[in-house]
């Protein structure tokens, strides 16, 4: 060493000698340079200098090794040590040394060694570790595993993620012999077999979406990529990636099925269907629409829906469309008119929804167009007929009214002028006939009046109040028949009705209940009411003679039907009542048994205007 100082200086190696007895250290310039000093700066160098340069964590490790060397427990001192650079950062060295001089007893006198700067290598190592970690994490996150099939060693390697994908435990070792068995039987196994064969013959890579078998009755969709490694034209290794795409694939398959269903519906539906752009242009129309409106596909694609919408219906349509785009509604329906290719105007029921992308941006509309032209014509005819019928009834009742009025008036005058006429049999029959005629016309008027009422001004009426009024109205007959009336109607029920109708309806049912009492029983009449689905259901139950519903059920509410040999029964009551209930948007149901009694249920609308007062419920 002393003989070759220049060689030593030129070497990029730090050298050192440690004198055991004095604990002195001799070293070269390079030794000091590694930690950023010059040799003079550090001189005199002792073991203390050394210790000061050490990162504390590595001091113990080095000390132990050195002690072991001096005790001849080890042959070489070898250690990777972290040191503090003069500038503060860390440097890594590899230090190696051994006993180079001993005394006569063999005790170590000098240890000689070298240090090598391994900072860069160390950095690379750490980087590598980090990369490995990142790769592993990425692999896990991407559900992508690595696999390698070595044909030389017959080793089949799966990394952790691959094992997970195949639903195997961490210590599982895959079987290279029948690796095809890892794929689902049938087409999938054939597919991978073919792909592998192609890699062998054409050096092609494969990239497949394939169903793997992950146990009995358990299958999973994966994407598998395979690359061949060739040596002398022979494939020695097949390796690649496998990615779990089960969720995505199944969603894609589902979507494909749904799309197919939609396509089938779209193409074969008898009603018109169309995809319409945001600007109203026809993007796709089906045959149903072609047939209905008479335009071919090509003609449609040059038009917008605005072009062939009846001008009177366009604004409403556009407004609804706007609300759809503004997300104020999910879909809309309307009846509108289209102009057919031949110029004819037709009625359609249109139903529109909006398709949005995953960012909620509108893409296009889906429209269903149903031909309701016949229905519309029919309902217009019916409306017209209804109007004419009503008009007819009105004229009849009005004209009959004046004639019967005159008849009554004349007969009255005749009696006034000649009292003796009362004893004339002809005259008295004439009087009866006239009275009956007047009554009939009155009833007819009632019915006409009911039918010309508008439902716009229904009033909130307190049911209880009306029932109490009706009861007091017929108090005389209640008393004379000893009838017992149980009224359990709650005070807070309000129905939507016209006062006169409600009065007449309740009175009619109560009167009937008493009128058709059984001579064998004390009349028991129960009145109750409940609210259900915005409806008030009033029940009036009696224990009277009952009605033979099998015989009269269908005629019960007809005009001039009577079912009893009761002398008061006129039959008009129920007919008018039914008309009144229906005019209020309600209905009547009846249950009855001969000689047991009847129950009439009257369904009326609950009033929205007056909400029942709800009292706070006490906390128990």
């Amino acid at each position: 060493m002393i003989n070759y100082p220049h060689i030593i200086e030129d070497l990029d190696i730090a050298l050192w000698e440690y004198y055991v007895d004095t604990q002195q250290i001799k070293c070269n310039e390079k030794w000091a340079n590694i930690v950023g000093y010059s040799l003079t700066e550090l001189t005199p160098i002792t073991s203390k200098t050394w210790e000061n340069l050490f990162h504390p964590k590595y001091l113990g490790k080095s000390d132990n090794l050195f002690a072991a060397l001096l005790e001849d427990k080890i042959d070489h001192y070898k250690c990777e040590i972290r040191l503090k650079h003069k500038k503060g950062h860390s440097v890594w060295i590899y230090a190696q040394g051994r006993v180079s001089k001993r005394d006569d007893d063999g005790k170590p006198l000098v240890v000689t060694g070298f240090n090598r700067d391994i900072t860069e290598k160390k950095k690379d190592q750490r980087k590598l570790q980090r990369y490995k970690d990142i790769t592993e994490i990425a692999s896990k996150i991407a559900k992508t595993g690595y696999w390698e099939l070595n044909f030389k060693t017959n080793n089949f390697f799966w990394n952790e993620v691959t094992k997970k994908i195949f639903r195997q435990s961490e210590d599982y070792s895959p079987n290279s012999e029948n690796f095809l068995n890892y794929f689902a039987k049938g087409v999938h196994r054939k597919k991978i077999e073919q792909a592998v064969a192609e890699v062998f013959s054409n050096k092609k890579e494969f990239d497949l979406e394939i169903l793997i078998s992950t146990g009995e009755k358990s299958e999973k969709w994966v994407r598998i990529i395979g690359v061949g490694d060739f040596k002398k034209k022979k494939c020695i290794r097949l390796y690649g990636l496998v990615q779990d795409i089960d969720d995505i694939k199944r969603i894609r398959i589902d979507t494909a099925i749904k799309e197919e269903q939609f396509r089938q519906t779209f193409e074969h539906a008898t009603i018109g269907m169309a995809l319409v752009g945001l600007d109203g242009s026809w993007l796709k129309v089906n045959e149903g629409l072609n047939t209905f409106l008479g335009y071919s596909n090509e003609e449609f694609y040059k038009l917008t829906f605005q072009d062939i919408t009846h001008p009177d219906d366009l604004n409403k349509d556009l407004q609804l469309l706007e609300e759809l785009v503004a997300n104020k509604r999910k879909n809309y329906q309307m009846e509108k008119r289209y102009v057919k290719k031949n110029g004819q105007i037709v009625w359609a029921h249109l139903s529109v929804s909006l398709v949005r992308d995953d960012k909620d941006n509108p893409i296009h509309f889906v429209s269903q167009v149903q031909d309701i032209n016949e229905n519309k014509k029919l309902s217009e005819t019916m409306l017209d007929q209804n109007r004419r019928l009503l008009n007819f009834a009105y004229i009849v009742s009005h004209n009959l009214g004046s004639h019967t009025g005159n008849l009554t008036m004349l007969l009255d005058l005749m009696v006034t002028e000649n009292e003796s006429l009362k004893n004339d049999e002809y005259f008295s029959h004439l009087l009866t006939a006239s009275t009956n005629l007047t009554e009939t016309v009155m009833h007819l008027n009632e019915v006409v009046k009911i039918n010309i009422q508008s439902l716009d001004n229904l009033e909130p009426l307190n049911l209880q109040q009306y029932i109490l009024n009706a009861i007091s109205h017929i108090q005389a007959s209640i008393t004379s028949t000893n009838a017992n009336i149980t009224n359990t109607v709650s005070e807070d029920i309000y129905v939507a009705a016209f006062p006169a109708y409600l009065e007449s309806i309740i009175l009619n049912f109560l009167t009937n209940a008493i009128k058709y009492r059984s001579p064998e029983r004390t009349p028991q009449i129960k009145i109750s009411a409940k609210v259900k689905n915005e409806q008030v259901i009033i029940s009036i139950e009696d224990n009277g003679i009952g009605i033979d519903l099998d015989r009269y059920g269908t005629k019960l509410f007809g005009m001039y039907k009577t079912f009893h040999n009761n002398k008061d029964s006129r039959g008009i009551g129920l007919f008018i009542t039914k008309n009144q209930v229906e005019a209020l948007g309600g209905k009547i149901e009846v249950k009855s048994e001969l000689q047991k009694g009847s129950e009439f249920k009257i369904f009326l609308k609950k009033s929205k205007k007056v909400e029942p007062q709800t009292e706070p419920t006490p906390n128990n």
Partner: protein
Amino acid sequence: MKKINLACIIDDDPIHVFGTKKIMQLANICQDFMVFHNGEEALRKLSALVKGGENIPEVILLDLNMPIMDGWEFLEAFTKIPTQRKVHIYIVSSSLSVDDINRAKNMKSVNNYIIKPIALEYIKEIVNDL
């Protein structure tokens, strides 16, 4: 009991006219009548009376449905003619239409709406209101 000096019946139905006259005569409420069979005839004669400063009826019983000029048209035209004293106009119709009844009730010039047939008690009420 008060009496009506001169009553005017405007109606195209002769039986109604006969009956009304008869009732008033029997009850000895009114002796003098003017009868017109449509609004146009009534308007022409009545406006001539007003112009000539002659006696005009205290009470008019007016039908609604009439040929040539109906009750509504008559009302509209007649109420534009200024008269020296108030004429009590009653509509006497067999129309039960709510529209007709409300329309009549909303007219200042109409005293009341009577649904046919007319009876003595209505006439008595009319006299009481005079």
